[in-house]
């Protein structure tokens, strides 16, 4: 008997438009999507198809115009701003395309930011961040500034930062686009090894077809709609 998995994300009829009048742009036209816990879903599609808008809504940093967005059962739009910010800080991790590491903080301090935001004391936060850096293969690099790290290492710091506060959902925007093929592969392996499990879900927006094999499912978007959801291709290694 198949055991029903808990839904991490449940989107129903999501629409979103920007601007008004002649400059009105419809980014999402009724998106329905479900992401299970412990699932790695990749969102793919051409530029401007609405991927970034969709993950912004899922992450609770953008409101949809219509439809509902539930993350672990919480209606994101129904929450008060303050509660939503707290919910984001507690349950969602972020990995950005440009890493967005603070250049004047060390790797450990950067990785500790979600904990610092939650009010954890600096010493403890940095210790926990250093442990997480070790898990992503950056043992001994905690004192390095981002400028002293390679692109792949910076992305590892960003991954450590997204995991340090044990979120239940991680949203990633083009995590491998700034990396070469080999480094991109290593980063994705890291995601599978370190980030997955413990009921955690990952939504990764990507154009990089070389990493599709790491997905559980791939949702293809076009013109503000999800046109296809497929199982990932077989792994090549």
């Amino acid at each position, binding site marked *: 008997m198949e055991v029903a998995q808990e839904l991490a994300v449940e989107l129903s009829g999501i629409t979103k438009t920007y601007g008004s009048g002649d400059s009105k742009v419809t980014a999402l036209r009724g998106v329905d999507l479900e992401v299970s816990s412990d699932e790695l879903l990749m969102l793919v599609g051409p530029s401007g198809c609405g991927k970034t808008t969709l*993950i*912004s809504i899922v992450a609770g940093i953008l409101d949809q115009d219509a439809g509902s967005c539930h993350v672990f059962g919480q209606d994101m739009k129904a929450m008060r701003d303050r509660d939503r910010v707290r919910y984001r800080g507690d349950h969602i991790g972020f990995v950005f*395309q440009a890493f967005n590491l*603070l250049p004047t903080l060390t790797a450990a301090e950067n990785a500790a*930011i979600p904990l610092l*935001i939650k009010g954890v004391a600096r010493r403890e936060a940095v210790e926990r961040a250093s442990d997480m850096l070790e898990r992503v293969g950056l043992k001994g690099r905690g004192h390095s500034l981002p400028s002293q790290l390679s692109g792949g290492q910076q992305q590892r710091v960003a991954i450590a930062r997204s995991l340090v506060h044990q979120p239940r959902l991680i949203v990633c*925007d083009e995590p491998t686009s700034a990396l070469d093929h080999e480094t991109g592969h290593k980063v994705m392996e890291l995601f599978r090894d370190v980030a997955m499990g413990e009921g955690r879900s990952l939504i990764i927006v990507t154009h990089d077809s070389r990493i599709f094999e790491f997905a559980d499912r791939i949702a293809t978007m076009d013109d503000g709609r999800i046109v296809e959801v497929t199982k990932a291709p077989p792994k090549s290694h």
Partner: protein
Amino acid sequence: MIYVALRMLTGDRGKYFGIVMGLTFASFLITQQMAIFVGLMTRTYGFITDSALADVWVMDPKVQFVDDIKPLQDTQLLRVRGIEGVEWAVPLYKGILKARLDNGNFQACNVVGLDDATLIGGPATMIEGALADLRRADGVIIDEAGAKGKLARKGPDGIAIPLKVGSTVELNDHRAVVVGICRVSRTFQSQPVVYTTYTRATTFAPMERKLLSFIQAKARPGITPKELASRIAKGTTLAAYTKPEFESLTISYFMKYTGIPINFGIAVLLGFLVGTAIAGQTFYNFTLENLKHFAALKAMGATNGTLLVMVVLQALLVGGIGYGFGTGLAAMFGRAVGTNTELAFRLPWQILCGTGGAIAVICTFAALLSLIKVIRLEPAIVFKG
């Protein structure tokens, strides 16, 4: 997050020093210009300040400031002495007389004639000679700046030879002998100050029916200067002011009828605007450059309140450091130029407070501009590359 805010600010040394330098410059400029303005204004009533003994100054009701001499009849002195509560009252001559220089030029001098008997109103600091030497024939005491500067003689090699005790000067065609050199507050017009006795001053002065410039009076114990001034004014129909009132009257005249306040006001305003432009713009740019980081923090769960505290803290820190450096530099500048030179410079605590307020306004303005950006910041921009 306070640590993150401080690291964001100080981590990039170049930008950090740029902001601090901007605020230092603004702080220095505002403090220095205000101090020169205050120094200049202080000089307008320096003569009143130097006359420490008198409680009340009596003069013609039409007098508008200390150099606006409208002579009184000598009999007015007796009327003032007759007012109940007057401990003593002495005459004072004050006028501008010409001194002939060796090269044939004339130099206007501020001649002060002191009561012959008491010499009340004389300079407090004597560098050479003694105040009592004024009783010697043709005796005058000249201020140090005048003796070394405008009244100094030119030697054969062109080097100025200061007047010293024993030198003679020609005041309005009268011979005067220098019997002392004193130190007094600089006058507004930086004219040499020449002290002599009242009687001698009136012989130096051109013939006029009335020569009594002021009457200085002292209140009896138990009577306040204000009360005495009021009694004298009522009893004589003359104007009588306490020392602070006369200083205030003099300043008011200069503020109202000269272009000094507006000219210095413009300089101070320029300092403020330049400071705002440099520091505000630099700080604003700093926040703009960090917007993507603020957006990332916001996305990761930092509240607007947390970000506001970070920005305000950054503004306060650079503001405080810039203020400290700027006012410190201004104080060093003041110390370097000295307190009694051609350049008027006075740095009372009120200026430091004023500069602090101005820097706070600059920082608040810059922080507010930045805060608006941060508050309106859409965290979704972090996904836009």
